[in-house]
């Protein structure tokens, strides 16, 4: 096994362990929460005690804890999330479209902002002290620190209500009823609705990337190796490219981590723009104590974060030749 493979195996093992821990925590926390999804039904008088016992048996809730845990483990790890209690629909059927909606909004936004803001960050870092640098830092820090719904509402007011350029709400016109993903997302109508939330998320994420890239380049700018590059006769742009390459690692890592967090959606943004994403769905499910739904949503989110961490580690090891993949140091 090569050093890298060994490193990979180790990281994988850690990730699997983490997944198990996360899954168990979800299990325990949900069982500890007071109340059960049936309670509301019982109090409403819709169910008799007899029916409750039957339903409990159907869901396996009369089994001892450890049995429940085992079967829970088995199914959740196989992505069998069961039925939503309140919607009588497979959980996947509820979650999948929401997840897709969230991802289709946030992934392109994140990629766009990672590329654009990092490039801008590198550029302003290189031209340190310029007006552009100050302006961009102030602007992005402002955008980053204002809650996203405020920016969102502001944009809605300006672009939707005042200028009436784009619709303020939702993912598509009320009249549209597309079938399937392709029809849904590859339409002008969708694009029309898409632009505003997309822009707001791009701006929201821009600050971190800009600062990371800028700080990286600023730090590298006075470094000895750039001096040698300069002495070799590299042009300004080539030098900037080397400085950028040397500050790539934190950006890449951060990107991977952010990508994992995207699976949680941006709840406030989804609310402001009426975007049917996974964040909103989770909040609803918790309110309604729809355990299977909550369970599945939280599991997907945790898994995404764990996988993203794994990817970040691997990217790091891959792109940084100095990372010792074996760990132990010698004299």
């Amino acid at each position, binding site marked *: 096994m090569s050093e890298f493979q060994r490193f990979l195996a180790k990281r994988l093992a850690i990730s699997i362990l983490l997944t198990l821990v996360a899954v168990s925590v979800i299990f325990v926390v949900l069982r500890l929460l007071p109340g059960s999804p049936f309670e509301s039904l019982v109090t409403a008088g819709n169910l008799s005690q007899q029916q409750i016992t039957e339903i409990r048996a159907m869901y396996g809730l009369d089994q001892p804890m450890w049995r429940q845990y085992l079967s829970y483990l088995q199914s959740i790890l196989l992505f069998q999330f069961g039925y939503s209690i309140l919607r009588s629909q497979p959980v996947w059927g509820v979650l999948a479209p929401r997840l897709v909606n969230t991802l289709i909004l946030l992934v392109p936004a994140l990629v766009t902002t990672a590329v654009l803001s990092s490039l801008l960050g590198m550029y302003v870092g290189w031209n340190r002290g310029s007006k552009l640098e100050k302006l961009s830092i102030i602007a992005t820090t402002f955008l980053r620190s204002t809650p996203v719904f405020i920016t969102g509402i502001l944009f809605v007011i300006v672009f939707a209500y005042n200028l009436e350029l784009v619709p303020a709400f939702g993912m598509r016109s009320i009249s549209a009823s597309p079938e399937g993903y392709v029809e849904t997302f590859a339409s002008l109508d969708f694009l029309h609705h898409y632009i505003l939330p997309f822009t707001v998320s791009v701006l929201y994420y821009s600050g971190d990337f800009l600062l990371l890239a800028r700080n990286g380049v600023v730090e590298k700018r006075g470094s*000895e190796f750039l001096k040698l590059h300069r002495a070799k006769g590299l042009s300004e742009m080539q030098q900037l490219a080397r400085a950028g390459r040397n500050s790539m690692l934190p950006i890449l890592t951060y990107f991977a981590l952010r990508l994992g967090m995207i699976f949680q959606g941006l709840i406030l943004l989804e609310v402001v723009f009426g975007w049917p994403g996974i964040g909103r769905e989770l909040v609803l499910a918790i309110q309604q104590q729809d355990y299977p739904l909550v369970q599945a949503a939280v599991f997907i989110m945790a898994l995404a974060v764990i996988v993203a961490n794994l990817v970040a580690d691997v990217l790091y090891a891959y792109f940084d030749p100095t990372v010792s993949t074996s760990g132990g140091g010698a004299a």
Partner: protein
Amino acid sequence: MSLLDITDLTVTYSTDSGTVHAVNDVSFSIDEGVNYGLAGESGSGKSTLAEAVLGLLPGNGSVESGSIEFNGRDLTGLSERERRDVLWEDIAYIPQSAMDSLDPVMSTGAQIRQAIQTHRNVTDDKARARVRELFEIVGLDPDRIDDYPHEFSGGMRQRVTIAMALALEPDLIIADEPTTGLDVIVQDKIIDKILEIQDRMDSSLLLITHEIGVIAETCDELSILYGGKAMEQGSVDNVLVNPTNPYTMGLKNSFPEIEEGDQDPVSIPGSPPNLSEEPSACVFKDRCPFATEECEASHPDLVDLPNRNHRSACHHVTKAAQMRRDATDPETWGIPDSHDESDRGEVLLETDGLEKYYEQSQPLLDKLRGNDPNYVRAVDGVSLRVRRSEILGIAGESGCGKSTLGETIALLKQPTGGEFVFDGEPYEHYADGNMREFRRKVQIIFQDPFDSLNPRQTVRQLVGEPLTIHDYRTEERERAIVETLEKVGLTPAKKFLDQYPHQLSGGQRQRVAVAKALVLDPDFLICDEPASMLDVSLKVNLLNLLRELADTEDIGIVYISHDLASLVQVSDRLAIMYLGRVIEEGDVESIAAEPKHPYTTSLLAAAPEKDPTVDRDRVLLDGEPPDPVSLPSGCVFAPRCPKAEDACRESEPGLDTVRDGDHRAACYFPDGETPDADGLADDRSDSTYGDPEFSPPASGDSASD
């Protein structure tokens, strides 16, 4: 016409606290095929000058006036594009710190290829072939061109930068401290390599260094800079044999040399001048013992001395012979001529058979099988003893484990075996909740000031940080900081308080690192090559400072360095390390005078000689130390030892094998005992070490005229 003609060059930096006049009216020229040396203390403007020539001045630095003509073309007037064409094609550069001069995320070969392809239109294959060829020339394995910088040691990285400089066979190579921070043996090899190659290519060399010895051995002409002014220049033979400028005399005095131990190093007391104004008086007047009113009035012009290639800037140049005589006397410089053998106090630190092994990582399967892992024996059974008021010098090549030893006795690393007692308490006592106390009493000064100083903190924050951590002298924080800065020669302290590390010269940064350690008034100081970035005079100042601290404050000091010369100057006792063990130990005088172990002998012989008239036989030890994982049986030095015999390979000699009072060595055939010993021992007795400090003025004058 000369190759490089610098006329009245003035360079300034603009900073928040005003203008720094780093180079003032310096002129010199370098002819084709000539080696030109540039010497001077830290902050004297050497690097600034080199950067001005290369057009590499940082954004806040600018050439105020003067011209830099290269082959008749003024470099200061070139456009960005024209300059890029000159760089590397005509003028190449070997940077000051090889350790961080290579791009960490680009393979070394690719970096050299980049230099080639930026200027020449060649295919990748051709460029690769050239890189292999260059690796071969500088003595690196051509199969390693795809390795990254971190996979090479410091010395090898320096070779990579040399290979890069040679890539296009430039007319002029500017080498800024090419060997700083490398150990003597590697330094010797690198200088040798540069000379050999440069000879073959017939290019000129501008060598910047604070080691006068290196210049004496390698250069034809030199300039001595101080406070941004050229104090003295001319042919090396003239300037170094018969200096006419008090500064050169002082600099030469302070160059540590391995003596019989009977002569103190004479350093120039005081600190470099304030560069915030253009000099109106002689820049050296504050530290010059010969200063008069005339010196107050104006900075002396550089005048030609009659009949030889020699210029000096001093109002009293006519009294040079007299000054030369006086300069050798420490009292002239206001240093009391005393080396009172301080009565050494109680034992502060004692180790017995101390070990630090690193486990090598091994495959999971082997771990599961329970195979014994391999160990790197970084420190392998070291027994030491340091008393109060005593300086113990630890010397050895890079990689011999001396830094690990330092970190282990600082308890930054856990010893894996052996006994450790500090201040009467064993290791367990400190490991068991008393680490804080230990951390205040024992300070370590690190090898690399760049790594240990946070670039985002000001000097005030840096030096004040330990006070906060240890809640020490917090109510008089500012005073403690200022006092300490002044102790380490950063005067006036006020000027430095708000500066960031990148605004300081290499030497100044190092001193900040020292101040950080001293601010807590420790009992015990571990210095890991604190002087590697310092120029000679400041280095001696620091060594003297350590000496003073040891004598007056009653603290014990362990001084770890590859530079045996400075160790000999400062230490009371020496321990020589090789591959994790101490192979010779004893009083400084007796080791310097009569080394017993062949390794010690070769270390002593690798130190450069500052007198250009002395021809030193270089003793280039072959090879590198063996792999510390699979050590040879018997004497670990045997593979490189010129005297090794079969007996050596059978069993390992203990430190007690040779014993002469306090002086012990681990060798079966020690030097100095068998009269028919090989060449190694002879070399050092005939040329290098028998000489007096340097020739007395009278005889020197006649010799060179």
